[in-house]
């Protein structure tokens, strides 16, 4: 999974899609997930880092992550290439 390459993301969690003109905002967890996706981390690496950073249990994260990815896809921010 990859974040579309031209998506602009600021440190405050503001996301701008220059192809569609849509803008969104996300919290620190979302921002960290997007940062890791931009670094081309796979799902397992991503889960491992987020669990450590935000003291969250793995099964809850996995479920929430599925919802978050679906949301990113529906907003055309995510390219699923695997």
């Amino acid at each position, binding site marked *: 999974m990859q974040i579309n390459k*031209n998506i*602009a993301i600021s440190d405050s969690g503001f996301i*701008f899609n*220059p*192809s*569609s*003109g849509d803008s969104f905002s996300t919290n620190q967890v979302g921002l960290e997930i997007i940062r890791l996706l931009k670094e081309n981390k796979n799902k397992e690496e991503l889960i491992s880092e987020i669990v450590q950073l935000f003291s969250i249990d793995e099964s809850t994260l996995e479920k929430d992550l599925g919802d978050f990815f679906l949301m990113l896809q529906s907003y055309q921010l995510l390219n699923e290439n695997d």
Partner: protein
Amino acid sequence: MTKRKITVAVSGLNNIDSPGPGIPVIRALKESEFFDIRIIGLSYENLEPGLYMRDLVDKSYSIPLPSSGTASLLERLKYINEMEGIDVIIPNFDAELHSFIKLATALKRDFNIETFLPTQEQFESRHKSVLYEFGEENGVKVPYSKMIFSANEIYSLKTDFTYPLVIKGKYYDASIAATPEQAVNYFHKISAKWGLPIIVQEFVSGNEVNVTAIGDGKGNCIGAVPMRKLYITDKGKAWAGVSLDDENLIEITNRVIGNSKWKGGCELEFIKSKEGEYYLLEMNPRFPAWVYLAKGCGQNHPEALVKMALGEDVKPFDSYDVGKLFVRYSFDQIVDLKDFEKISTLGEL
């Protein structure tokens, strides 16, 4: 750098809730890097807000409505030119363009006034009633459309169209009809305002994206900036919008402007379907009211138009800022009764 002093006459001063492009064009011209421009406003009504924007419009004159014919318009322009010495005229209303295109040769020959307008053939070729054919000629998808002259024809449309469909006026206005009854209702509403024919168009769902562009008349697209509306008024006008990074849209615009050898400013209105396909909904034969966004993004289209009108060589813009927004606002001007009296009685201000 010393700026060349010129005088440019501009119409479309109706900076209202459904704004004309005049004031944005004037703002872009006033910020020209090459010209020091005296602006002459051309108005059709005495309450067009631009008449009273003295920081932007140096002098204004009322001109006859297009329905009065080209002879009276030419006579009026002759008088205005004697007073002001006009170098270039930029008309900004669809409904007046026909008259100005017709008068372009006479304006140049008799008064040395330049214009930079599409030819009559180009103007007609992108008309809503023949847009489908225009799309085929220029390799761009256009929703299927048909002209109708009577509300009775709506009931026989079911062989060509499914509902919802779009009912459009020949110059302005469009409504989405979900049933034949709604279509008849919109037919009467829009034809009462803009006359016949009415254009019936296939409805395509997706996001509306628009491009403001300018062609040199030789097949070159001099500039193009795509925009998505972010805030839309109840009249369907953009109250806020953002410039987009969309190579496909720029490529389609280059193709349309190039193939048609479009001369002058224009606005291309597209729907981008969920599948990522672009459908041309309209091509307006003049700058849009949001053209100042192009200036804000680094492409001053009105300035480029003036340069080309004056015979200067203009190189195509090769970039623009993505993610720039425009946000419109309304503003109450306080106007002295004497000013209103002047434009109402003398036809100039």
